[in-house]
């Protein structure tokens, strides 16, 4: 032990240099992947905490900008809401003066999805409210982007929603601009399309399709889809209109059931 310590202390400088040289040689001889791993380990220990901090601060800056933009949109939305409320009151007065029936008022019941029934597309969803929450068969269901479907089965505490992606669930729709009627259907192979539209109907890409209010299930004016493309072959009586749903059925989470307000 004594000899070893004497040798070590006498040649400490030489040993230190030799060890450093060995480290240098090893990093030279190491294959690239081991050097990469050494770099990654060092980065994980020393650089990573600061990168995370930097990302967090940059994210905060982004949040501040986003907050500013959302506040601006909120003011704009409030202004539009006041204008819409005023237009609604005016519409109500005019309908009364012409002797038209008023459209029914709806209450929105917020619900959560418990499970999805899915094939290629989700076709139905089980929700966490049922008859005890005033939900009834055929009540329309929507989310913030537009129409989602209708209630097809009601239990005491749960219900099942038939989504618009269910091929058996068709909706009477109309083009918001040209007011032409059609039937919105969904095919797993072809996607969403508007059926029964005359060949001479004016349709342009980007037109909005809304519910027509016909059929007595869905109230008029709910956003359903946006026109992707339209066309009719020579001699066709009906036009084929391909649609892009306003609702992303792969990302639905919070839904609202529309219940007749008179109840």
């Amino acid at each position, binding site marked *: 032990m004594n000899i070893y310590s004497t040798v070590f202390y006498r040649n400490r400088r030489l040993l*230190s240099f030799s060890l450093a040289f060995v480290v240098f040689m090893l990093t030279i001889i190491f294959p690239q992947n081991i050097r990469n791993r050494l770099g990654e380990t*060092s980065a994980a220990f020393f*650089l990573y905490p600061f990168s995370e901090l930097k990302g967090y601060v940059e994210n905060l800056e982004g949040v501040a900008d986003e907050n500013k933009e959302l506040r601006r949109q909120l003011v704009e939305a409030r202004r539009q809401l006041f204008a819409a409320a005023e237009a609604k009151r005016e519409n109500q007065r005019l309908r009364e003066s012409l002797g038209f029936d008023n459209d029914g008022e709806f209450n929105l019941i917020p619900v959560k999805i418990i499970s999805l029934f899915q094939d290629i597309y989700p076709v139905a969803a089980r929700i966490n409210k049922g008859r005890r929450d005033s939900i009834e068969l055929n009540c329309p269901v929507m989310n913030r982007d537009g129409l989602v479907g209708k209630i097809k089965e009601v239990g005491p505490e749960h219900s099942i929603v038939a989504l618009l992606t269910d091929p058996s669930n068709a909706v009477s729709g109309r083009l918001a601009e040209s007011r032409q009627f059609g039937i919105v259907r969904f095919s797993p192979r072809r996607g969403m399309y508007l059926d029964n539209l005359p060949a001479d109907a004016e349709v342009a890409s980007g037109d909005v399709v809304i519910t027509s209010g016909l059929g007595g299930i869905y109230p008029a004016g709910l956003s359903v889809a946006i026109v992707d493309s339209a066309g009719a072959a020579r001699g066709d009586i009906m036009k084929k209109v391909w649609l892009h749903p306003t609702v992303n059925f792969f990302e639905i989470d919070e839904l609202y059931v529309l219940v007749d307000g008179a109840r």
Partner: protein
Amino acid sequence: MKIIPYIIYLYLIAFHYTILSEIVDIYQITFDLAAVIVGLIAMYRSESVALWFALAAAVVAGSRNPELIPWEILLLGGTAVVVNQVSLRVNLESIASRLFIIGGLVFVHVLAVDLLVSRADVLFSIYRHILPTVLYSLVVLWILFLIIDKKLTWPKIKSLF
């Protein structure tokens, strides 16, 4: 416990590479903190401490580009030993001599890394990147030495305003 300050220095180098360099850069020129800290430790600490700290600093400095790790080890380790030996033989009383020694280390380090990374026109690189980096590092070092020598103190700064 003696190792803790060195770990803090390593974190300081990492902080410089990730955040500080973007804040303090002038026309994309920033000071070479890794070389500065290695130089200061080589100047004020023993040879073996300088050598091993330089090796650790080289691994941190090279972690963004692992291909550079061996060259960073060679550069920072070699220059740390040279700076340590020179410091033992020259009078370190004057700030100019200390600036000259560490400035030399920074110059060699930046020049070598530039040659290894970009292999661009050396003269243009010296004019556009290396000399401004050395100059910026020297300014930072000068302020640091003024503080270490107590020539720049808080009461003196306050008296200016």
